[in-house]
């Protein structure tokens, strides 16, 4: 059963790529992507349910379906579904049908790499899958072929490849640390590493974890390794930005979290979590500074991703059942919310023909339905009630105040307030500054639909945290070694 679900999740995007290459029409390609993403989403919901009952290791230990990985797959699948709906409405920069098909092929490939990475049971294979996501998505970032987009893709590839080589070094050292316990040749699964960690040299494990944190942290966009993120996220087509921000960052965070659980088992959880907390808090600070005085609408959203990855890092850093639950809940909420925001930013860019906040005016008056959805999304992403992110941020702060690092929780809360004011100030300007010139066109129906589809669960998750999810998160927290 689990194997079928995993095969559907991994195989459907691949099948979609083959069909798109064989058939060739841009409309067909868009429809194929939407269909594939529907299948993937349905399978990932079932996978979450199945992995909660019994985590499975399949195909001779190569593939893993544990609750943590299944959750990240669910977040990715949700973004893939919404973003491919948005992309079906048109892609900026796809001037010829052939290029539109190419976009959809690459998009499915990117979704494939992001979906299979969490399934990798072997730390080395996980590294390779993450590297694959970089290579595919770099071409999506460069898709618009402007000088800026090319520059962003180049920076993305250089910075992330350099960063991720540190993660490879960390993986090698972790394997080496394990080889003293398990012998020179063994299967480097996460489970084996966690099991042997108690007998490994703790200093070496901590060193390896710090390298993993620096490496995968670059991909997550934690400050100070975030420099590629605003460029790549702002230059990519909106659907790609959504998948980069809502899905890929979570997938990379998974590597940090699994590394953390190994460090925890080696008895060096304290130091490892302190490093994670430091990077998380720094990300919040950097994001706050850049959000307040931001001029580009998509760069604003990109820095908001830095902020939210910082919050998730804080959640896992504070640890315990509360911290882990908050961080996981935040992953899903952020994935939905950021997709909404990037779809909105992409539509506004089409309508006003500019990426500057200064060019976007009177959104609420000109496009009432779209404006209401986007504004609600903006309120949600700053962590205001009654939306899901409020619930998850509050849980993470509760985890902070329950532990010895209450002061860090207070600092984080203060930075969140600064971000709230700074972010919504941009929306005040975009909605209520009068302007003489009317926008060129109105948002397409297909670009508003995913926004509505994202907002509904956000509102639901804000008002009601399903009890089953609490249980699920508690299972994940236990598997990561957090004390009940």
């Amino acid at each position, binding site marked *: 059963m689990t194997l079928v679900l995993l095969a559907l999740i991994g195989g459907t995007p691949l099948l979609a790529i083959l069909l798109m290459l064989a058939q060739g029409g841009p409309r067909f390609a868009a429809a194929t992507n939407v269909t594939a993403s529907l299948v993937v989403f349905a399978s990932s919901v079932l996978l979450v349910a199945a992995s909660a009952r019994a985590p499975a290791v399949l195909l001779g230990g190569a593939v893993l379906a544990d609750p943590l990985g299944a959750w990240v797959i669910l977040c990715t699948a949700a973004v893939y579904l919404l973003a491919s709906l948005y992309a079906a409405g048109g892609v900026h920069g796809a001037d010829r049908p052939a290029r539109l098909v190419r976009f959809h092929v690459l998009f499915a490939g990117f979704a494939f790499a992001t979906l299979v990475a969490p399934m990798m049971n072997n730390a080395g294979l996980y590294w390779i899958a993450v590297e694959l996501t970089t290579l595919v998505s770099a*071409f999506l970032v*460069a898709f618009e072929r402007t000088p800026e987009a090319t520059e962003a893709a180049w920076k993305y590839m250089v910075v992330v490849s*350099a960063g991720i080589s540190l993660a*490879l070094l960390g993986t090698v050292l972790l394997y080496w640390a394990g*080889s003293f316990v398990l012998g020179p040749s063994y299967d480097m699964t996460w489970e084996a590493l966690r099991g042997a960690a108690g007998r490994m*040299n703790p200093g070496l494990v901590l060193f390896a974890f710090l390298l993993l944190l620096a490496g995968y942290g670059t991909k997550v966009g934690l400050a100070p390794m975030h420099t590629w993120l605003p460029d790549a996220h702002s230059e990519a087509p909106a659907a790609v930005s959504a998948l980069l921000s809502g899905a890929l960052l979570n997938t990379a965070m998974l590597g940090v979290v699994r590394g953390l659980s190994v460090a925890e088992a080696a008895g060096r959880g304290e130091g490892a979590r302190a490093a994670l907390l430091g990077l998380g808090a720094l990300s919040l600070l950097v994001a706050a500074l850049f959000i307040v005085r931001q001029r580009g609408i998509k760069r604003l959203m990109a820095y908001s991703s830095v902020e939210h990855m910082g919050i998730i890092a804080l959640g896992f850093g504070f640890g315990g059942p509360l911290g882990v639950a908050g961080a996981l809940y935040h992953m899903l909420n952020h994935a939905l919310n950021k997709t909404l925001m990037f779809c909105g930013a992409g539509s506004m860019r089409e309508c006003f023909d500019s990426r500057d906040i200064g060019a976007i005016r009177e959104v609420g008056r000109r496009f009432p339905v779209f404006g209401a959805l986007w504004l609600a999304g903006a309120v949600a992403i700053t962590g205001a009630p009654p939306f899901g992110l409020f619930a998850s941020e509050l849980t993470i702060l509760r985890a902070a105040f329950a532990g010895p690092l209450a002061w860090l929780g207070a600092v984080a809360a203060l930075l969140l307030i600064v971000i709230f004011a700074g972010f919504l100030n941009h929306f005040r300007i975009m909605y209520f500054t009068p302007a003489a010139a009317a926008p060129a066109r109105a948002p397409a129906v297909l670009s508003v639909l995913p926004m509505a589809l994202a907002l509904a669960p956000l509102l639901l998750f804000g008002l009601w945290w399903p009890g089953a999810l609490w249980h699920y998160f508690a299972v994940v927290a236990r598997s990561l070694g957090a004390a009940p």
Partner: protein
Amino acid sequence: MPVASLPPLFSSLFSLLAIASLLLAFAILASRWVRRYLQAFALQSWMIAGISAAVAYAGHYPELYLVAALTALFRGCLLPWLLWRMVGKPEAGRELHLSVQASSSLVIGALAVLFALVVANRLAAALGLADTVAVLALTVMLAMEMIGFLLLAVRHEAISQVLGLLVLENGVFLGAQMLIPGMPLFIEIVLLFDLLIMVLCFGLLARHLRANLGATSATALRRLVG
């Protein structure tokens, strides 16, 4: 682990090859010509292939002969050739613009090696492996990692950024061959292919870069800030 209990002859052979690779990293750091760059990188890859073969012989890991052959083929021949084609012949004879003088970057590189040695000594001492070839492997691995980052930071040409990344990868690969020869063969081969695909992707992007920005100097990449 065979690393700790090697016959003296093999210890010296490993030391020789590892130190030669480190020196070649310095040669890359100091050279101003693309041609010299690529030659030093190719030679470094051959050294690493030699290490793989020596580990295969000394530690009885027959599958590492395959890795050695593939390393020599991919990293020693194919990658330099691809990069050579990527920059184009007239470009390859060109002098590179250095933002930090070659002599200064050599000094920084030497400091990096010192730092790597201190870290390696402490790690090895904690593992009870002091005064073995493991210290050297760790030192060279960490030092090449730092020299790779130095290359990324001080050189502003597209080609030297790619080469910086390749030096990073070479460093990790060298360390992996000596410290964990038992790493599954499958992963080593996938890593080799991954590198090849990475360079091909960089080649494609570099073509975009030249078409759109009219230059492959990363100093032209100054549009996106803030």
